[in-house]
């Protein structure tokens, strides 16, 4: 049994029912607006009434009261995006048959808000991450404070001020560091005593308490205004946060926004608090480091090789490389003192390395400084020094000793120099002739500070003009390096090196030797290295 074939539909069925069409349109969550070929609105759905009530049939869309849409129509654009009646709207145009067209407009307010919130959260996290890593970099107090003032601008505020009290010994005045938007770098200064009291919330923050953000009142904040750059403009709001740290507040952070900018919202405040707490911790760490470093520096300054004073009749140069540690102190040392007739020099090596050796080095140099005031003949002085060191408490038990060369120079009338050298078990100094000839000056003797009955000897050497005497510690000859990394630099290489720079002034000789030993070491660790070069001064 056959059934009649259905008649093929010439085109998809459209609801002839205009009422149905109307209901479908009004049920949409988008606003739909159609126009005829001249751009006049022919139809709007219900959502249009909510989102774009300005549009009714008969409106000329190119001149409608929704500026973004009118512009889009005018420019023939396919989309528009605008803020309208407190909502975020996004519209798309679709052409219809017969030159007509339809605009579909969506309310994306919430979508946008979610995206904005996500971006804001991301930028906060990025800000804190960057701030955290920047604040962790420096161990220097001032630099950490400068970073604290610089980082919140412009993200959190248009200007940031750090108020802090300089570590003692110092005045009691509030110090400030400012960074304002557009400035090339942070600026520091000292405020008046009134500053702390006159700014509401500042004294509290310096005590560690937080206050809410407040509007800028010119009358109240005149003292603070003087700290802002003149070109800053009118401030709007400020937020003060304590820079908390384990040892109490390290200061206070004042964030200032210009009058045109929105105030601080709750999230901004949380972020500012978090940031200033991190900054406080970083400053506290830097302060702690500063105290330690200061101690180390005081120790170091008393131990580092001195700037050599001018000595009549001779030119001198010293060179020094401490065994690896960042304190740059060790067991080798040299000293030069001018005397009535010329000068006195000493070069020594305290056994051991590191802080232990450094302490003994300090004692040897102190004793030498004192004893040379009463005794300036080298052999007598070295004996005296031995007694002094040996008598020091615990010296024998530690079994530490020092090798030393002690020389006294006197000018000869012909321009040469006579040097009397007393030795305490130290490598012999080398005499360098201008023609490259090298002679070892035998001195000998026993180390000082180890034996009550130590014997010391004295030698005399005469430097003609152009001749040079080099005293050095065994760190030079025992530097291990070279192609195999285990060979010692040795006296032969030292002599060759000296021959190659014969006739040069002491400074150039010492520099060249340090360079050669450094190249020999090729980055390997080494013992302390010290050297002292002396030659007769030019008559010129």
């Amino acid at each position, binding site marked *: 049994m056959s059934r009649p074939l259905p008649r093929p539909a010439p085109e998809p069925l459209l609801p002839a029912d205009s009422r149905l069409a109307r209901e479908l349109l009004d049920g949409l969550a988008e606003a739909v607006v159609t126009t005829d070929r001249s751009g006049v609105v022919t139809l709007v759905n219900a959502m249009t009434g909510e989102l774009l009530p300005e549009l009714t049939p008969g409106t000329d869309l190119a001149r409608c009261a929704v500026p973004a849409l009118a512009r889009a129509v005018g420019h023939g654009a396919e989309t528009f995006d605008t803020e309208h009646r407190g909502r975020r709207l996004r519209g798309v145009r679709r052409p219809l048959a017969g030159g007509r067209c339809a605009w579909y407009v969506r309310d994306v307010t919430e979508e946008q808000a979610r995206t904005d919130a996500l971006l804001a959260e991301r930028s906060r996290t990025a800000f804190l991450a960057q701030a955290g890593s920047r604040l962790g970099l420096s161990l*220097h107090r*001032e630099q950490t404070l400068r*970073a604290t003032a*610089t980082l919140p601008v412009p993200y959190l505020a248009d200007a940031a001020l750090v108020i802090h009290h300089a570590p003692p010994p110092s005045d009691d005045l509030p110090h400030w560091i400012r960074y304002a938007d557009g400035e090339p*770098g942070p600026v520091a200064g000292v405020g008046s005593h009134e500053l702390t009291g006159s700014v509401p919330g500042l004294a509290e923050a310096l005590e560690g308490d937080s206050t809410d953000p407040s509007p800028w009142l010119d009358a109240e904040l005149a003292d603070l205004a003087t700290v802002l750059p003149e070109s800053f403009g009118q401030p709007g709001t400020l937020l003060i946060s304590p820079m908390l740290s384990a040892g109490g507040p390290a200061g206070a952070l004042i964030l200032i926004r210009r009058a045109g900018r929105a105030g601080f919202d709750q999230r901004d405040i949380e972020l500012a608090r978090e940031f200033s707490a991190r900054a406080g911790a970083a400053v506290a760490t830097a302060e702690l480091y500063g105290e330690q470093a200061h101690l180390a520096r005081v120790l170091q300054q008393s131990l580092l090789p001195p700037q050599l004073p001018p000595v009549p009749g001779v030119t001198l140069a010293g060179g020094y490389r401490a065994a690896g540690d960042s304190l740059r102190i060790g067991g080798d040392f040299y000293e030069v003192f001018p005397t009535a007739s010329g000068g006195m020099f000493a070069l020594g090596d305290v056994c051991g390395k590191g802080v232990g050796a450094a302490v003994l080095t300090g004692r040897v140099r102190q004793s030498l400084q004192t004893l040379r005031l009463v005794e300036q003949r080298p052999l007598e002085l070295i004996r005296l020094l031995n007694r002094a060191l040996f008598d020091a408490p615990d010296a024998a038990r530690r079994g530490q000793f020092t090798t030393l060369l002690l020389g006294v120079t006197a000018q000869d009338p012909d321009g040469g120099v006579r040097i009397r050298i007393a030795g305490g078990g130290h490598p012999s100094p080398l005499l360098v002739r201008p023609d490259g000839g090298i002679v070892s000056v035998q001195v000998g003797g026993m180390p000082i500070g180890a034996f009550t009955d130590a014997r010391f000897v004295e030698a005399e050497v005469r430097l003609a003009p152009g001749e040079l005497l080099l005293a050095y510690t065994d760190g030079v000859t025992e530097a291990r390096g070279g*192609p195999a990394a285990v060979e010692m630099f040795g006296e032969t290489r030292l002599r060759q090196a000296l021959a190659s720079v014969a*006739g040069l002034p002491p400074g150039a000789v010492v520099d060249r030797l340090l360079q050669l030993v450094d190249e020999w070491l090729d980055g390997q660790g080494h013992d302390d290295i010290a050297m002292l070069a002396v030659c007769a001064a030019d008559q010129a």
Partner: protein
Amino acid sequence: MTGDDPEPAGPPRRVDQTAVEAYLDSLDRADPGGATRIALDLLDAGCSVADVLVDLVAVVQREVGLRWLTGRWSVAQEHAATHVSELVVGAVAGRTPRRASRGHTVMACVEGEWHALAARIVAEVVRAAGWRVTFLGASVPARHLVSYLHQTGPDAVLLSCVQPSWLIRAGRMIEACRSAGVPVVAGGPGFGPAGRWAAAVGAAAWGETARDAARLLDGPLFGAVNTGPAPVPGSDEYVAVLRRRREIVQLAVRDLDPPEERAEDFATAVAHLVDALAAAIRVSDPRLLVDFAGWQEEVLTARGGRPLLDTVLASCVAALAEHPHSCDYLRLTREALAGRA
């Protein structure tokens, strides 16, 4: 702003050729008195510290380097001349009023770098421009520099590197400064023609002369936040090269078979070449190695040596066969040297 001193007395005099020649002549005679007089006379005639140090002392020092390079002057002559110039810089510095109002900078030479005169000149010109400058001197170990930075918190570090073979060390020092929050202004030919490798090792800026250094410090580089963009990572093959450095040097010296008294010099030269290879890979630029090898060849042949570099480069290729960048760079360098010959 060039770091020049303001208000010279009378019509300012420029450093002219006569002064340059007279100065070179006093270096040739190792005459510190004469050299100092020339420099101080120019200052009295209205030249600025930058004029005297950059246009006279630095210019002549380049000539001194050239004379050493071409073998006209011995190492000793070069050292004597440099020493005289150092005394001159000291004397000029003694005439400069200290008006440190701008901030604090630290001048250091990369570890292993002993040519401190150029750095000294930069330090004095920057000082004359109103900065407080701490001159840490030649060959500053990285750990000393870092401990100094933490103790004093300067605004910037000026780092001098004359030889590109020290670039890896320079990079490590710059990294150390950056991690202490201090930006680095690089200077010296070691950072490449026009400083092309300075950014790759993390320097915030590069300057050619002492005047550039003073100008760069004037820029907005140096807020507390900005240590410049991070260094470019590049290939890590240089690490492998450095690890095998000693082995490569021994192999190359064995292949060269030099007379015993020169074996150590050769070993040092080869070690520098390997350093240059590592540096070239670090900054991804074979030109670093090509230029350095060309310079070494020049030094060696100027002293009457036969061309040796090709043998050394061949040994390196053999030793580093499994490292593609190294082989590539070494091949390019051998071709370039063959082209020069």
